[in-house]
């Protein structure tokens, strides 16, 4: 948060806090060769699929060493070698692209699986329904993952849809559909494993709605834009979901079932903190893209 507040990070940053279990559980069920496409809120997807922490942070700082060479920023992160084909902020913009990547792997008979991550807001876009239909017609190996955090930017999803039934969207297209809690990484993994198996066997597509909540505002730490707090969600609601924080949930589970000792967990946390700090230092020290290279990458030469 600090670099955003201090202005060291200037590009809009949409934090994934509170939704971590979804990316983690889904990507744990994927192989390296599998493809993912994401959204404006995709730092978690990137890291969970094996993206490099230093390159991610450097990209957010707008540096040449970033995963998109400082041309993309927080909302356009990728690592094609790791199967992270891209993320974009156009709502529902990558759903059809993910369908295309599944089409590519089907034509090439590669048995890769594609995952399209999108939010509940994307259910308002027509391209989602076109994509579901086309994917079902061609029996493509794709998992449609809807991360329902209950808000489409500021607008409660209950005001966007007449019924709380996103998971049923797949049914008219004969796509097996599930609704699962998105705040329990093991439950996420379980359903993702099942979906991946189905896709690899040629029984795709699959639709999964994960119920979750973002613990921060839509953008930045708390939607604080020029001093005005724009996060209008009820404080009680935020507090209620804070109790369901997926990382704390998992921590409690590990300790309760004695899978990890507290000191092991602390060691892991310390290691993560070190990695994050190191990534920030790397990003700050990295050079900005050269002004003379403004037009580089418009076309592939």
């Amino acid at each position: 948060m600090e670099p955003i507040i201090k202005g060291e990070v200037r590009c809009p940053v949409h934090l994934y806090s509170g939704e971590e279990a979804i990316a983690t559980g889904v990507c744990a069920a994927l192989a390296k060769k599998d493809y993912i496409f994401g959204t404006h809120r995709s730092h978690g997807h990137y890291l969970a699929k094996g993206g490099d922490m230093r390159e991610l942070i450097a990209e957010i700082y707008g540096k040449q060493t970033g995963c998109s060479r400082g041309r993309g920023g927080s909302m356009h992160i990728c690592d094609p070698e790791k199967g992270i084909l891209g993320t974009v902020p156009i709502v529902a913009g990558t759903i059809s692209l993910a369908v295309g990547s599944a089409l590519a792997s089907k034509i090439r008979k590669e048995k890769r699986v594609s995952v399209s991550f999108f939010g509940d807001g994307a259910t308002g876009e027509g391209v989602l329904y076109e994509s579901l239909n086309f994917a079902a017609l061609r029996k493509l190996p794709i998992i449609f993952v809807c991360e329902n955090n209950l808000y489409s930017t500021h607008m409660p999803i209950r005001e966007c849809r007449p019924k709380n039934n996103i998971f049923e969207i797949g049914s008219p297209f004969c796509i097996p559909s599930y609704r699962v809690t998105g705040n329990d990484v093991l439950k996420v993994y379980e359903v993702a494993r099942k979906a991946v198996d189905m896709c690899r066997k040629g029984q795709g597509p699959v639709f999964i709605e994960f119920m979750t909540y973002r613990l921060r505002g839509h953008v930045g730490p708390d939607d604080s834009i020029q001093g005005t707090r724009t996060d209008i969600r009820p404080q009680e609601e935020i507090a209620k979901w804070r109790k369901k924080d997926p990382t704390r949930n998992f921590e409690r589970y590990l300790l309760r079932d004695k899978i990890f000792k507290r000191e092991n967990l602390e060691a892991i946390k310390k290691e993560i903190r070190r990695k994050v700090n190191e990534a920030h230092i790397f990003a700050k020290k990295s050079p900005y893209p050269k002004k003379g290279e403004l037009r580089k990458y418009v076309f592939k030469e």
Partner: protein
Amino acid sequence: MAINEALRQMMLLDKSVFLIGQGVKSPWYVGNTAKGLLEDFGPERVIDTPVSENAVTGAAVGAAIAGMRPIVVHPRMDFMMYALDPIINEAANWHYMSGGRGSVPVVIWAIINRGSEQAAQHSQALYALFAHIPGLKVVMPSTPYDAKGLMISAIRDDNPVVYIDDRWLYTLEGEVPEKVYSIPIGKGIIRKRGKDVSLVATSYMVVESMKASEDLKKDGIDVEVIDLRSIKPLDKKLLFESVRKTGRLVIADGGWKSCGLSAEILATISESGNPFKNIKAPIRRIALPDTPAPASSNLEKAYYPDHRKIASTIRDLM
């Protein structure tokens, strides 16, 4: 059939090439351009789709990101407006916003299908719209030879290429070599050399311009006809050299006048300064009026400029 040959040869040579779009099975949509491809390459590589321009174009773009070389066809360019997000937001920006790590070797093939009282939504020549967008290349063939060569170049290009052809050209016949050949994107061609006036045209307007240049021969006016072939990038060098030589410029554009191709050509030449040092006459633009395409054939005649209009415009300059 020139396009058909290009598709067939490229699909044979490169397994990553596939054709997707509405009506690829039906001659009603795409004429003979996809004839026999389904039989030869099967439904995995010749994919007829429901009417879902947005998702289908997005799927082609996504497949290209994943390493394929799709051609997505829009039998009527007007319907392609549903697909502006995958074309403009995604394909055009992808290479840049990924810092060169992802590329989109897709061909977006749009067919302009106008006249015959088809009215405003079956007639639009929207190439200037796409030429405005950084990251897109836009090509427009005017001969069967170019139709094949430009399609092959478009498929081989590592960037998204919008390939736009005009149904009015589909009855044209011409020499098309059997071999695989390509026409460089960004290079125009002089269709007829001349010394009195540079007539710059593209796609179907090249046909009208050639007719106009024949008409003008009788008046002793020697027209140089330039076929741009590529709308983006523009072959500036060819334009500059021709205008410098003739000192007169007429642009025959098959699109609308405001903020269109003709304005871009004029501005480009104007900014370069040099060719204007010996300009002998005012520059003239022939384009569609800023009006939707009408239905009634009587109005169509007033709407679409032809060789007579081009010839009379040039006569006035001499």
